[in-house]
């Protein structure tokens, strides 16, 4: 009893200290639905005053601001100073800096394939087995998150190289509830319904889809998401896995079929805003704006859960825009497969602060503080779903948890030159007129070169 009282007094005394230590904490420790207990225990146990932690990652702009809020909690708890730099061309920068010896302490990889590449060159430090065990036990479908971060190292031995922190859900279609209501459309539950809806919108004189592949040097990646989602809906998950490992080639008829099904949506001038020629050049950040135009320039936009960051200012989730699950074929009997992706924290320059940061990321609070800012999903099973900023995010979290089949974005798992290169440019070629078979064979040829 006395001990418990003492602990409470100690923790309570610590909360104001933490809150006052750094004025940038928007969610006052001790309040709200957050899991503060583990946080205070961590803060008491860790003291890194005077140490500097460098992190580099792909988040810029608004996403960077939100991540820095999470980092503020780490700084408040440990006294360390964190410097985060985000870059649009992170994939290239990290390779150069890792090889030049100027790598940051932690690197946030948006593609496990790239992390695997660097791990095989010995540029990433493996994490201890207990971290792997912890992930297996504390993440929903934990073992798959461990497997996705296990690669052969420089010596050929398998090692566990990173912790997943943020998850994106990709099998979502965004739409405007007002537009659907006014036109009297129902949300499609099956892929057959979706195709019928597409036809109907076109017949009614509207344009069903907004699709934009533009992304600077990464142009083409949204199309890879389409193809992967469709791949999961027409083939068994084992085929998907074999495709990722190139056990079935890119020019396999199953893959070509998936590409062509994407073409049903994207290569029809009547189905896409701006016509087919606009697909390849419209920036992916620009293309959802068609949903919000008056009169609407399109009715649906298939995109991952991070896209709300690029909606026009003042858009209210649930009212001005909402999403539905990208449906599966009713007659294929493959359940409700879900495509997702995530970012991976890896240690590129070991330090005490880096290890502490990874421990911090095990705390629910590290996830909840971003969940409460919006635009964040996680596979951490110990977080409180009430901290999601709105019902919409909570619903996405539900989809994630209840997926019958969950698969990671294939292009992020393939070797960098394919998944962040040939696949992207191949899709651009497809959308601008090359036929699916030629495109697929080209990508496969490039993959063969790698071996």
């Amino acid at each position, binding site marked *: 009893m006395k001990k418990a009282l003492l602990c409470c007094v100690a923790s309570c005394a610590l909360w104001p200290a933490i809150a006052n230590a750094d004025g940038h904490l928007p969610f006052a420790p001790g309040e709200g639905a957050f899991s503060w207990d583990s946080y205070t225990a961590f803060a008491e146990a860790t003291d890194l005053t005077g140490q500097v932690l460098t992190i580099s990652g792909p988040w810029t702009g608004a996403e960077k601001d939100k991540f820095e809020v999470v980092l503020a909690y780490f700084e408040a708890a440990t006294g360390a100073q964190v410097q985060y730099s985000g870059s649009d061309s992170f994939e290239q920068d990290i390779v150069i800096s890792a090889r030049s010896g100027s790598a940051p302490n932690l690197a946030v990889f948006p593609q496990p394939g790239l992390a695997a590449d660097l791990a095989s*060159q010995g540029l990433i430090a493996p994490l201890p087995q207990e971290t792997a065990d912890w992930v297996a036990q504390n993440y929903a479908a934990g073992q798959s998150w461990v497997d996705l971060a296990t690669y052969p190292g420089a010596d050929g031995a398998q090692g566990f190289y990173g912790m997943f922190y943020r998850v994106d859900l990709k099998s979502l279609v965004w739409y405007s509830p007002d537009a659907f209501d006014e036109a009297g459309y129902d949300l499609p539950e099956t892929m057959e319904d979706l195709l019928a809806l597409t036809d109907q919108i076109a017949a009614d004189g509207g344009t069903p889809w907004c699709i934009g592949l533009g992304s600077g040097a990464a142009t083409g990646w949204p199309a890879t998401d389409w193809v992967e989602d469709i791949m999961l809906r027409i083939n068994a998950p084992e085929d998907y896995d074999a495709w990722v490992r190139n056990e079935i080639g890119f020019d396999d008829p199953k893959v070509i079929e998936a590409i062509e099904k994407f073409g049903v949506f994207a290569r029809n001038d009547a189905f896409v805003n701006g016509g087919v*020629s*606009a697909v*390849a*050049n419209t920036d992916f950040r620009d293309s959802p704006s068609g949903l919000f135009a008056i009169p609407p320039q399109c009715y649906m936009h298939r995109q991952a859960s991070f896209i709300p960051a690029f909606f026009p200012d003042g858009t209210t989730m649930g009212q001005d825009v909402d999403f539905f699950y990208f449906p599966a074929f009713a007659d294929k009997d493959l359940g409700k497969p879900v495509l997702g992706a995530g970012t991976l924290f890896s240690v590129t320059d070991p330090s005490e602060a880096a290890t502490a940061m990874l421990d911090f990321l095990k705390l629910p609070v590290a996830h909840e503080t971003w969940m409460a800012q919006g635009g964040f999903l996680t596979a951490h099973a110990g977080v409180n779903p009430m901290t999601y900023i709105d019902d919409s995010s909570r619903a996405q979290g539900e989809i994630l948890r209840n997926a019958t089949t969950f698969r990671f974005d294939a292009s992020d798992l393939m070797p960098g*030159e394919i998944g962040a*290169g040939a696949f992207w440019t191949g899709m*651009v070629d497809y959308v601008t007129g090359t036929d699916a078979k030629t495109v697929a064979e080209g990508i496969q040829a490039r993959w063969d070169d790698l071996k």
Partner: protein
Amino acid sequence: MSPLIQGALTIFVGVGGCVAYFWASNVVLDKVLFPARGPNAGRNINRANLIRPWLFLLPALLALGLYLVYPVFGSFSRSLYNRTGAEFIGFGNYRIMLGDPEFRTALTNNLLWVLIVPAASTFFGLLIAQLTDRLRWGTVAKSIIFMPMAISFVGAALIWKFVYANNPDIGLINAVLVVFGAEASIDVLQIPFWNNLFLMVILIWIQTGFAMVILSAALRGVPEETIEAAILDGAGPARVFFSIKVPQIMPTIVVVWTTITILVLKVFDIVYTMTGGNFGTQILPSYMMSYMFRDDGRATAVAFVIMLIVLPVMVWNIRQARKEM
């Protein structure tokens, strides 16, 4: 140490160091090694003068040798290895490249760039240099034409995105087309073959200023007597231009032409930013970028191919330089 202080320190150290080096080495040479006194004065002075040029040249030779000469050979040898540098594969990289359709597209496109951009820039530069020669507001006009050179290539790409945008409300070209009655907007960067020309326009827009400035200086240097003699003989302005001025500045025209050619082979930003190399617009420098640091064997092979293309220009330049000797 803050980079600003570091920078200021570098300027002091660098400049001071250079000056100190030159001064000190000369002092050492003249006072210590080969003093201009005593019995061997004459021989010493001669020896000092023999060594002195090399003292002056030493820092430059070091820098050039390290940063330009060594990479040529270093790159060639790197291109003979595989992507991680571990395995020697001889000409494997080159063989694979020649079989890659994207490489072949990049090669043909690059040849187009090399043919068209320097010619167009030089032509416009010459034209504007001549026209603005005696104009009262000539300096203003020339400054405006030169201004694009001050803009970074990324900035230029942004500027031209506003011209080429696939939207009559943003893109100038589509707006003009709409005025003339076109129905749908065209994405000019996706028109096969012609999209290359639209991209070349951007570089011509930038480089004309450079050509104009140099050719303008050259035109001013044409001796007045030759021009007046031609006028007295009854030649009109056009005749004067083509028969008197142009032949006399021909060496400068060629220098401008070759300099721009070299630049064309270096610039990758424009294609990289506007189309990422898609739609058949790929050129060798941006093709190389997509391999850089991922497959260094292939990347250096491409760099070496660029070097080979430019070799005739280099040889020609060197010949000209030796002729002047």
